[in-house]
């Protein structure tokens, strides 16, 4: 079969291939490391039974919706009591509760968030815990 305008067609196909395979070529030779959120904060060390507000699997997938519910509950309904896993009572607060236990934001929250490239805008206003 004869190809007309072979040069232009070739350029087009090369561009298409470069774009279509770009995720492969970008990842080539780069070792992807799975994030390992660290739990070694003083507050968590002190706990006898190391557990979060809700089960770990739930927290992994749904902590952002939980935070949203907490925010709405506190700011809109004035209710800041949350009964969590196993009947524990928590004060619904981002800085005061989550970050008290997870005071290692850089090694915990940011570890995952960097991996999936999210930058929660919460820290525009809320103050992250001091870390060295």
């Amino acid at each position, binding site marked *: 079969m004869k190809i007309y305008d072979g040069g232009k067609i070739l350029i087009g196909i090369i561009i298409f291939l470069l774009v279509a395979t770009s995720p492969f070529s970008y990842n080539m030779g780069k070792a992807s490391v799975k994030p390992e959120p660290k739990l070694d904060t003083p507050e968590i060390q002190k706990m006898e039974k190391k557990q979060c507000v809700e089960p770990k699997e739930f927290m992994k997938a749904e902590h952002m919706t939980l935070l949203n519910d907490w925010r709405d509950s506190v700011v809109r309904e004035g209710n800041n009591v949350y009964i969590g896993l196993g009947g524990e009572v928590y004060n619904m607060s981002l800085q005061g509760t989550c970050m008290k236990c997870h005071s290692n934001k850089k090694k915990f929250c940011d570890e995952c968030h*960097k991996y999936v*490239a999210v930058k929660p805008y919460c820290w525009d206003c809320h103050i992250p815990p001091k870390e060295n």
Partner: protein
Amino acid sequence: MGALFSLFTVLILVLIAFAGVKAGNLHFLFGVVIPYAAIITFITGVIYRILKWAGSPVPFRIPTTCGQQKSLPWIKHSKIENPSNTLGVIKRMALEVLLFRSLFRNLKTEIREEKVVYGSEKWLWLAGLVFHWSFLIIILRHFRLFVDPVPAFMHLIESFDGFLQIGVPRLFITGVILLVSVAYLLFRRFFIQQVRYISLANDYFPLFLILGIGFTGILMRYFTKVDLVNTKQLIIGLFSFKPEIPEGVGVIFYIHLFLVSILFAYFPFSKLVHMPGVFLSPTRNLSNNNRTKRHINPWNYPVKVHTYEDYENEFREKMKKAGIPVEKE
């Protein structure tokens, strides 16, 4: 008919993925084998189509123009509407691809008071344009799940797309626009009679498929969550040829992935192939230089001619004898 058939096809596809993963435990098939097969089909299929188009000769310039052709210097030449050189074609093509310029001229035809009347119709252009742009942004946005480490500018897309800061995870505007515009493109086929008449299953199927992809994506992001870290691991595994099936990736992700795989595999064999096709449309990608350049038909073969001069040379004597006048003695 076509619409119902397409709707049920998409629903069956969803069920296949659901049953395959939930009941059949075929995580590897749906998470690795089918996506790879789809990528290979997509790439080879598109190249095959391009080569097939490139094999058709375009002996004459056939751009559809709508402006003054380049002519005498004192006649104003419409450089983009009727390009006379490659630069003009590039400008025209860029406007076509980025802004759907020819669709902007879309008209609607109606019979009013027993007369055919034409009116401006921009909704199709608007819906088509926002649909394609949001689809593009959505694909680019997905790159944060395709590559690791994620390049810094990816955050820009997130902050622009999510700048309304509604909810957590924050609402991405393009997701909403995509669903609304695809719904418009679909309802248009239902409710505009003339369009309904010419709509076939292969018009409805991509629309339902894209709706399905959008729905499952939005469901997964905002409602029935998946563990995104593990999901990204699966995707990175695919894109670095080290496939793995991590724990805790919900079935909704496999449904989403299956529909996307179907879309990519279906792409080269359907109307969707207009993506590379627009660049190879002879009515768009040629400059109108028919009058300034000679274009030789590639399938012209040498024609044997017998001129009058030769004829006379051959029969001169006989012609003279018969008293027929000749040009040369």
